């Protein structure tokens, strides 16, 4: 058997490593996608939420009469209507409760107060305007630093006297939890005895993942059968089904949740929102399908923000720049309800990854969560849980330390990296990093961009008074949540699943517990199966998102699809291959041990002409199997990962700042990613492009700003920064491959790395530009032109 024919057969499979064109695209380019808002059911009504204009107020009265009198209005629901059903409050993924419709008071601006159901969207909006709500304003808590003041207003009256709101003991009415990790005493001692210490406050500002498709659902309750079907914009449809059962008491077997095509998620579509619950209740009450789709302002104002981490980072080092300890204190603003979306036992997510890519012997991180009169949330915006925040603090701090020691930011990184031979590496905060080669990645980037040349140019420009910044970021992510011994959502372990069936004629269908929102799962899962089973990916149909057909899984977020769902797929395929081997041995009348796998067939070792292809084996599986074997060729796997995976990368940004206008031009952005084994390079590159642009948006402009009264003043596309093609930089990509030793195919996940890594990279570049002129402190994001211009002016650089 020549290698050439093997290669040809392999190419025909379009398996792992090939830039296969996407299976999803034909429907999307012809307007045949099927998104939630495209769903139209007979007799369907439309719901609209009535929202609070105040951040904190008592509800004195709600008058529905005028709204109900409008022709075409079917019902107006308030908390009082939901109370008899026990549905005016709902549990959150974080262990708190959240008002479905405001119960006696509102705790943030735009909070859900009533739900109007009408014939169509126009009548629903008219009727929402006619609902009269009388409020009595209350003092607000906006600044998280004052949330725990002795005289602070109480955000959550329902929790007064309760010592838990998810995540541990509370010490103040507005306190949610304290979470810490590492050795505090040892860290304190390391700081006391260190040659050099640095300390810096910094903010990961409140932002929003803001997918182009907003959140929504169509709930349809069949009164005769007692079945509930919900089409929903969810990244995790199976857990939605479980929660619907917990809330409504409808048996899980009678609840069907369908996530059809999803128009981007980025973490925004993990949570379970009051609007969904209202539509479900309305459908039960009215016996008709009810659609609820939020508008853009509702999306930016209510359905789960991200970040709002107020951090104080500290590093201790010797005079040569060897880091001895890291200490981080965080104040986390969770808004009015603790609805952050993390594994339930991790109130600060994976923030403990804050030691980054560095061999830091001692570390301590401490996070306090507080309630404020702002929208609830705390989702992971295109990152694993709180990893962007963790990477930001360590990547900024290492630059701050470099500045103090007058060292080059690349040099200090190279000096402190965990070395390739140290893997698996146990970090001071308790993680076991699976694999990595950080020095090689950074050196490759430095060479590609002529790092020394750039620094020389920068020195020349600085001498002329011109602002040029060079930013580095050498990040490590922690993704693939996660081992069920430590990770669960509402008690359900964070495994994921795959079920593969091979049909008699050799094509296949496979279903997974994950859910694509643009990542191309229909394309890439088929590639994995193609490589494992020797079936062309063109003959493998992938389905996700329908809880009636797909096996239970925890969904797609935190870059968990490849590490967990991908692993389940490999394992299920390998179960099938083992059965196929037995059938092949039977057909060839040899021992199983005499067979070897060869791309798409089993062949007898030493007799290359004696083969059985997967197609032949598939047919035999339905008519001629060994004695005692069940017919059929299918397998299911529920994969509980032994560990997280740790993708990493080295990024570099070069930018020039106009010192008269504050406008920043990104000249180069060079991103090297290592996500282990690469399944589809084309899709990986697309994911990296997109993640970089979201990181650019966050660092350079995105912010949800609140005024002193708790009014949200940036919740439309007039204010909320979404880069167009004009502002967006051009991306240069590179990669290395360091497989994960514990993943069955060595893959780690990639889609979030570029977001996590690029935010500190842009921010380091801006700070680096000002550092050349002696800037003494860190400059916070977002680095928009106005804020940059203010710094220029303060430093007198516009002369």
């Amino acid at each position: 058997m020549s290698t050439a024919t093997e290669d040809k057969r392999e190419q025909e499979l379009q398996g792992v490593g090939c830039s296969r064109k996407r299976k999803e695209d034909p429907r999307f380019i012809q307007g045949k996608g099927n998104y939630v808002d495209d769903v139209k059911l007979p007799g369907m009504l439309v719901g609209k939420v009535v929202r609070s204009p105040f951040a904190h107020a008592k509800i004195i009265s709600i008058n529905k009469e005028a709204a109900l009198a409008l022709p075409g209005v079917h019902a107006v629901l308030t908390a009082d209507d939901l109370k008899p059903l026990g549905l005016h409050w709902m549990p959150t993924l974080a262990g708190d409760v959240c008002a479905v419709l405001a119960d006696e008071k509102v705790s943030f601006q735009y909070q859900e107060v009533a739900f109007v159901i009408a014939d169509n969207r126009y009548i629903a909006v008219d009727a929402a305007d006619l609902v009269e709500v009388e409020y009595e304003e209350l003092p607000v808590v906006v600044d998280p630093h004052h949330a725990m003041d002795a005289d602070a207003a109480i955000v959550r009256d329902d929790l007064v006297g309760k010592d838990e709101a998810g995540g541990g003991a509370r010490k103040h009415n507005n306190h949610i939890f304290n979470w810490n990790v590492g050795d505090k005493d040892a860290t304190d001692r390391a700081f006391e005895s260190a040659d050099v210490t640095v300390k810096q406050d910094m903010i990961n500002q409140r932002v929003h993942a803001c997918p182009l498709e907003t959140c929504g659902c169509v709930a349809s309750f069949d009164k005769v059968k007692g079945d509930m079907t919900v089409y929903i914009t969810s990244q995790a449809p199976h857990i939605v089904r479980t929660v619907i059962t917990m809330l409504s008491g409808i048996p899980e077997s009678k609840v069907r949740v369908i996530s059809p095509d999803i128009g981007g998620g980025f973490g925004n579509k993990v949570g379970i929102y009051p609007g969904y619950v209202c539509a479900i209740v309305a459908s039960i009450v009215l016996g008709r399908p009810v659609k609820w789709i939020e508008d853009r302002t509702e999306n930016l104002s209510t359905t789960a923000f991200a970040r709002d981490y107020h951090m104080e980072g500290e590093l201790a080092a010797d005079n040569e720049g060897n880091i001895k300890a890291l200490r981080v204190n965080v104040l986390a603003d969770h808004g009015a309800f603790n609805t952050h979306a993390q594994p339930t036992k991790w109130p600060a997510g994976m923030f403990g990854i804050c030691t980054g890519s560095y061999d830091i012997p001692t570390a301590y991180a401490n996070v306090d969560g507080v309630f404020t009169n702002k929208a609830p949330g705390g989702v992971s915006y295109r990152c694993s849980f709180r990893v962007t925040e963790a990477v930001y603090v360590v990547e900024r701090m290492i630059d701050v330390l470099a500045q103090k020691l007058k060292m080059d930011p690349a040099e200090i990184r190279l000096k402190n990296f965990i070395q390739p031979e140290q893997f698996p590496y146990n970090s001071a905060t308790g993680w076991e990093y699976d694999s990595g080669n950080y020095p090689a990645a950074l050196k490759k980037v430095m060479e590609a961009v002529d790092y020394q040349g750039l620094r020389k140019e920068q020195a020349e420009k600085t001498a002329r008074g011109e602002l040029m910044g060079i930013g580095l970021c050498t990040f490590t992510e922690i993704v693939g949540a996660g081992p069920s011994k430590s990770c669960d959502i509402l008690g359900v372990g964070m495994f994921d699943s795959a079920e593969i069936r091979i049909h008699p004629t050799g094509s296949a269908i496979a279903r997974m517990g994950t859910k694509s929102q643009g990542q191309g799962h229909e394309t890439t899962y088929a590639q994995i199966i193609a490589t494992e089973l020797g079936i062309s990916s063109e003959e493998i149909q992938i389905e996700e998102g329908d809880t009636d057909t797909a096996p239970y899984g925890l969904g797609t977020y935190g870059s968990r699809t490849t590490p967990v769902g991908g692993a389940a797929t490999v394992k299920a395929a390998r179960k099938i291959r083992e059965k196929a081997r037995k059938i092949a041995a039977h057909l060839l009348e040899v021992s199983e041990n005499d067979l070897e796998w060869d791309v798409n067939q089993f062949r007898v070792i030493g007799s290359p002409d004696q083969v059985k292809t997967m197609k032949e084996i598939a047919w035999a599986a339905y008519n001629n199997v060994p004695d005692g074997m069940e017919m059929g060729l299918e397998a299911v796997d529920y994969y509980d990962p032994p560990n997280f995976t740790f993708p990493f990368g080295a990024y570099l940004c070069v930018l020039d700042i106009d010192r008269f206008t504050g406008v920043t031009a990104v000249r180069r952005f060079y991103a090297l990613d290592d996500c282990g084994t690469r399944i589809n390079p084309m899709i990986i590159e697309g994911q990296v492009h997109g993640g970089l642009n979201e990181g650019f948006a966050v660092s350079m402009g995105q912010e949800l700003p609140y005024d002193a009264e708790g009014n949200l003043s940036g919740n439309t596309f007039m204010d909320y920064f979404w880069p167009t093609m004009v502002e967006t930089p051009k991306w240069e990509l590179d990669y290395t491959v360091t497989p994960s030793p514990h993943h069955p195919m060595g893959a780690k996940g990639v889609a979030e790395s570029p977001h996590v890594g690029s935010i500190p990279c842009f921010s380091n570049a801006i700070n680096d530009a000002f550092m050349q002129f002696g800037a003494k402190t860190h400059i916070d994001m977002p680095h928009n032109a106005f804020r940059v211009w203010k710094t220029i002016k303060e430093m007198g650089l516009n002369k």
Partner: protein
Amino acid sequence: MSKTHIQFKLNGSEVETLVEPRELLIHVIREQLGQTGSHIGCETSHCGACTVDLNGESLKSCTILAVQANGAEVATVEGLAASGELHAVQEAFMQEHGLQCGFCTPGMLMRSYRFLQENPNPTEEDIRQGMSGNLCRCTGYQNIVKAIQVAAVKLQAK
């Protein structure tokens, strides 16, 4: 509210319907005429997901009232492959991986379709300026720009 009779050409076919004067064209196309290819991302004329072609111009269909389309010729993404073959921009977006979640795609395609008639031989800078009314959250735009360049070459060769 009283309704007004309107009639226009949608993807080459005459359509007629009754609308309230306040109804936006995008709502009528999607909800009354059942053509759900064009999407709603903001309803404030920023994102471009609802971009259609109206009398030979790109138009965000959340920007005008349906009654204003009376007598017009409107084309949506569903009409791009009307000849039975994919249009060059559709092919190029697929070839160059110019889409991910697909939500901005119909608007992107309709704008590219018109843009390449306005400027058949654009520079990269021209493309970035000419397409800047259409927002994408997934792709970082790089492959969309590439797709439009590829489509331009293909259309020029025709």
